[in-house]
């Protein structure tokens, strides 16, 4: 029961983007196309799960005075690894995204989960927590990208759906992402009746 909650909770109720409003920068940057959002989700899932697991494995040995440095070293190593892999195996997609992949290091979700959760919990729970949070992040990313690509380019996965004259350039810029993200947060909060304290 507890396992299930660790995993399900960050998907909707405690979603890192819509509820905790973390990781906004990348939600604006890589949501122009659905494909990019999926690759970003994949990269973040790898980093978040692996960093949560490694930090949790080491949690009894990490001296608390340098724990942030240790977490940062682990996270940046993982991010560089995934960046290298994408450059080697998915070059065409990684080319326009490389800088945003590198910026996963500064994504608050990753460090937040490592310090707030993995430092206190066992490996299995940390794994589930990392996976859940990454998916919760991914759901919102793909959702925002879906609307931006559809309304901005008139395509989904580069397949034409809407005619060209409906394309809205605003959707391709950062404000478009803000608007959609705001609408999603609004919708979620009015359904769950959640109010910021």
């Amino acid at each position, binding site marked *: 029961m507890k396992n299930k909650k660790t995993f399900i909770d960050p998907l909707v109720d405690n979603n890192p983007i819509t509820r905790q409003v973390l990781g906004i920068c990348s939600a604006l940057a890589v949501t122009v196309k659905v494909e990019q959002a999926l690759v970003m989700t994949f990269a973040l899932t790898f980093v978040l799960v692996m960093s949560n697991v490694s930090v949790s494995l080491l949690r009894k040995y990490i*001296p608390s005075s340098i724990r942030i440095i240790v977490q940062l070293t682990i996270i940046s190593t993982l991010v560089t690894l995934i960046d290298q892999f994408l450059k080697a195996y998915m070059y065409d997609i990684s080319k326009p995204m490389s800088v945003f992949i590198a910026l996963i290091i500064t994504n608050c979700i990753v460090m937040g989960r490592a310090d707030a959760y993995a430092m206190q919990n066992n490996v299995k729970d940390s794994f589930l927590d990392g996976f859940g949070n990454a998916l919760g992040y991914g759901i919102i990313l793909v959702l925002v990208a879906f609307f931006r690509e559809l309304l901005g380019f008139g395509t989904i996965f580069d397949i034409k759906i809407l005619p060209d004259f409906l394309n809205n350039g605003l959707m391709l810029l950062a404000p478009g992402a803000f608007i959609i993200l705001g609408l999603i947060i609004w919708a979620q909060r009015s359904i769950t009746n959640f109010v910021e304290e």
Partner: protein
Amino acid sequence: MKNKYAFILTITVICSLLLSLVSEVLKERQSKNIAIDRKKNILSAVGVDISKFSILDIDQYFIDNIDTLIITTEGSVVNNISIESLFEKENSQTGEIKYFDQKEEEFLPIYTEKASKAIILPVSGKGLWGSLYGYFALDADNFSTVKGITFYKHKETPGLGAEISEKWFQSNFIGKEIYGNDVLTSINVTKAGLADKSALHEVDGISGATITSNGVTDLLKRDLKRYEPYFIKNKK
């Protein structure tokens, strides 16, 4: 572990070993990807349809149809230097890329395409947010008629400046002339909608992206000038 210095040292060493190992293993694949990407862009500058090409097809087409020439800044062809031995230096102010050998002597690369009789020149310069990198293809007989242009790397705004990598913008260049009355006039990117369709030296710019459009004008003017000695020497 009691000693925090020993702990952080261990972690750092493990992480760096892991990273060097991975980077060493993947290096070959990555540089191959970069090389293929360049080749793709060179081919699309002369209008070769590469959408159905596999990586092997691109390599093969390159071997069959493309020659790489290295010329001096005075325009004479040098035979004993390969493009791989040159290194690139970018001027961060202007985005201009220069090619040097080990002795800091400047050279210029030219690609020639047999099938459509074109030469392809690398061009680069400043846009709005960063440098624009591309290839510019000219007729190999008169060095004046434009065969095509591509931009393979830029940081321009999607929907505005980024339109330089779209077909509608690039196809405007095809058939234009960079020479007028035997003077190198280059091609002027005007404000959107102001270009005279029949004019030989101007193309329509992008609305909302004046700085990007001006950047294209400037980089063409400057980079074509560098190749002018070669054009003069080899013109038929």
